[in-house]
């Protein structure tokens, strides 16, 4: 009896090759992004000293004389990110604890998709809401916010990021073995103690990963800041003032008809490279942290 196949099936190899080719598209995307960013950026740094770029505190690439200090853009980005995290970190964690430890399966089944809707609303809609509704609302409360300001954009963005933080944190909490909770209850702990002293510490790498991801999203978010935070590169952490973020600069500058090869054109790429490097490092950190909690219990 001969069980081994006599005839080779070429079709099988072709299928495997085609599928591998599909997988290569995503590799090509990454290579493409890096290549697209690097070439004009290198040209940019031939004209502008990288040290001046990274430490310069004045950003005026379109003026005469031009200044290419990226610090105001980074300050603007961090200012908005701070307010976004100030909302999404505590409330995202709270929502995750509620869903994972307190909610009954029925409540969970309704609440979880309802929260996910927040993540499904297009960012341009949040931008509209921040500019047209939220900023005037803040003014009606007596806060002296400018029409464009970092605070309004940051708060609205923070609410948008709640489900991002909640779902990743909740995954990590669900991965904590029931035996740990049961052990704590047997020792007389109440739900508060079990949540805060057992589940949260055991899930901490997942929670941190969700925060890192939220920061990465906030840094890369464009439409909310473009509409609501303004396009005025100011070196200020004052939340009620207008700022310009890296993403807002890129989007606003690319809207004009920028000639290929001009210094303006290269500036877009240099700022985008800065943005990409920042978010790339945070994403790797987040992926690494998520792996960590998965390894412990599986």
């Amino acid at each position, binding site marked *: 009896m001969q069980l081994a196949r006599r005839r080779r099936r070429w079709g099988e190899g072709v299928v495997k090759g085609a599928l591998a080719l599909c997988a290569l598209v*995503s590799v090509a995307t990454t290579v493409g992004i890096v290549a697209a960013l690097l070439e004009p950026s290198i040209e940019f740094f031939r004209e502008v000293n990288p040290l001046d770029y990274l430490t310069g505190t004045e950003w005026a690439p379109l003026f005469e004389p031009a200044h290419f200090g990226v610090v105001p853009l980074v300050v603007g980005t961090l200012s908005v990110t701070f307010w976004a995290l100030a909302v999404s970190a505590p409330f995202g964690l709270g929502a995750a604890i509620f869903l994972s430890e307190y909610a009954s399966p029925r409540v969970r089944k309704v609440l979880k998709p309802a*929260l996910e809707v927040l993540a499904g609303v297009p960012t341009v*809609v949040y931008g509209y809401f921040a500019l047209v509704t939220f900023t005037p609302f803040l003014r009606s409360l007596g806060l002296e916010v400018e029409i464009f300001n970092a605070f309004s954009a940051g708060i609205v963005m923070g609410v948008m990021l709640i489900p991002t933080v909640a779902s990743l944190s909740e995954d990590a909490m669900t991965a904590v073995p029931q035996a740990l909770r049961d052990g704590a209850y047997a020792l007389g702990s109440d739900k508060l103690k079990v949540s*805060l002293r057992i589940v949260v510490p055991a899930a901490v790498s997942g929670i941190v990963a969700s925060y890192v991801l939220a920061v990465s999203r906030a840094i890369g978010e464009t439409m909310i800041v473009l509409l609501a935070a303004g396009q005025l590169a100011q070196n200020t952490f004052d939340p009620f003032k207008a700022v310009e973020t890296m993403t807002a600069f890129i989007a606003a500058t690319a809207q004009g008809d920028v000639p290929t090869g001009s210094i303006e054109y290269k500036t877009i790429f240099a700022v*985008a490279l800065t943005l990409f490097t920042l978010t790339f490092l945070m994403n790797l950190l987040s992926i690494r942290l998520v792996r960590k909690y998965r390894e412990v219990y599986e």
Partner: protein
Amino acid sequence: MKEVVIELREGRPRGRVPGRLFLAYLLLSVAVGLVLLGWLLVDVVGRGFAWVDATLFFDPPSADPQLAGARPAILGTLYLMGLLVAFTVPIGVGTAIYLEEYARKDRWYNRLLEVNIQNLAAVPSIVYGILGLAFLVRGLGLGEVLLAGAFILGLLVLPTIVIAGREAIRAVPGSIRDGAYALGATQWQVVGRQVLPAAAPGIATGTILALSRAIGETAPLLMIGALTYVPFDPTILGEFTALPVQIYNWTRQPQEDFKLLAAGAIIVLLVLLLAMNAFAIWLRNRYQKRW
């Protein structure tokens, strides 16, 4: 002994006040998001409902808000959807099949592929716009056309489709594969005739959700020149605009009427997204199997 019990009883209520405060904080956490969502919806509908009319659907944009419509933008969004389905779905599902069914997990290049896809899923959307600007619009000389927009949005949601596809494929139990192999099926026969049909509802659900994300994207389209006055119906190789870009454009106009019109366009966009999501949920409930 009795004193100890009394002591324990007296000790308990003290623990309850922080417990209640904590629960209040948790409920507040859940409520914050839902309240803002409700506020946003009520606000947008209140402003824009009167502006959702035949003019909005069937007329081109105009400098006069009373006459302006979003016909080219709505058509542009529909065309983008069609093109996305045509080339992102096959590539995304192919990648998912490769990673789940063919790739050996112990090979470094397969692990790299996986990390690469996870990372791409978190790259800011505006960076994809940069890719489009550098290679498609300027590099290839394709120009600021609809096809370039579809390519960019396609690459943007590819990781989402791959991740959803992998989950659906992974949910098919190994016993189905083993049964088919035992009957003498080849690997592709197992995948093509058993695994894929069983995973199809899950893949479809994930794909529709990914598409609805792509449809709401604005920033990458701004980068490749979708912010432009297009009074005519779009073509694949012509200038174009899309619904989110139109919303952005109207929102930043100084006239108050344009902001109301933007709210009308937001209603149209949200209804479209809601319909897609409802369809995805219906698909999942109708065809999902439990093994």
